[in-house]
């Protein structure tokens, strides 16, 4: 009888200890930054980028009024969702400028007006090979965009390798973009 009494006393205690341990590990992982709750993984990673065809902000001499994602196949590509009304997009402009020397960048102006986008690019520089206009934000939904800025890295076959939500900083470029570009053999 004594052993039974002790078991029924110990069981809840053991169960609680186990639960508390699991909670403590989860809390520690969150606080130590190995799992950032604000960074949601994109379901697009390792899948083909959505078919993308958008009105061209800067129609060229050939009368090419549409920007096609397929035109960039054969090389790694950064796709950057931005907007003139987005303050963090201004902050990441120098980072994009730097990256544009090493990799082609396609800009997608998210819920923006052409004239605003143009003056934004005049003021903060234009790191983009082309800019497509996603005026109503529909293309953003196709890509699973939460908000601007968001940046995707595509390999030569148009498969998404990486997604970064939020502005590109020196730290982000060094920690994630650069290693991913190296893995694609283009840094």
């Amino acid at each position, binding site marked *: 009888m004594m052993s039974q009494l002790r078991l029924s006393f110990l069981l809840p205690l053991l169960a609680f200890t186990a639960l508390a341990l699991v909670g403590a590990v989860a809390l520690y992982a969150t606080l130590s930054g190995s799992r950032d709750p604000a960074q949601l993984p994109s379901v697009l990673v390792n899948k083909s980028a959505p078919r993308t065809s958008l009105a061209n902000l800067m129609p060229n001499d050939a009368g090419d009024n549409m920007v096609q994602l397929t035109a960039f196949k054969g090389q790694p590509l950064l796709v950057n969702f931005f907007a003139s009304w987005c303050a963090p997009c201004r902050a990441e402009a120098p980072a994009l400028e730097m990256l544009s020397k090493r990799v082609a960048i396609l800009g997608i102006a998210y819920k923006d007006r052409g004239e605003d986008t143009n003056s934004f690019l005049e003021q903060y520089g234009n790191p983009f090979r082309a800019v497509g206009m996603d005026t109503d*934000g529909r293309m953003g939904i196709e890509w699973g965009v939460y908000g601007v800025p968001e940046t995707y890295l595509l390999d030569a076959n148009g498969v998404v390798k990486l997604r970064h939500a939020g502005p590109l900083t020196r730290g982000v470029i060094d920690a994630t973009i650069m290693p991913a570009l190296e893995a694609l053999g283009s840094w």
Partner: protein
Amino acid sequence: MVILPRMRNLMLVGILPLGLLLVSLVPNTIVTTAANAITAEEMLANPELEERARNLSKQLRCLVCQNQSIDDSDADLARDLRREVRSQIAAGDSDEAIMDQLQQKYGDYVLLNPPLDLATMFLWLAPFAFMLLGGVIVLMARRQSGTESINELDATERAKIEKMLASLNGRNE
């Protein structure tokens, strides 16, 4: 049956998960009857289709506000997703196809009800596991207290009480 103090504590341990489970079963519509974010011009003309759109919107997370449905939220992205749902309904897509498509773009996170799969197994089954654990604890506590509970008077106790009652009667006469 005599309920010993220790056993009462153990029973509480068993009842707590049960109570939590019951609370979790209360439909969340009771909690979230807040004002709707939808505007008149967003609505579909056909009330039947609009009803479907509203029903789907209530099951979809507003991704930038995290704990509101797109039906409840005023956020830009929520409005865009409502428009997306409605345009797909108008195009004749089924509810399942629409949910499936959004899930492919935004992942499970867009669903307010997490699907039952390997990754969410613990989430769905944990309440039942806790109920089971609580039940086991209650059973163990009952078995243990059964040996200590005393329901019947034994012969010496009975004799003692009868003697006391007899002396009481004698005094009253």
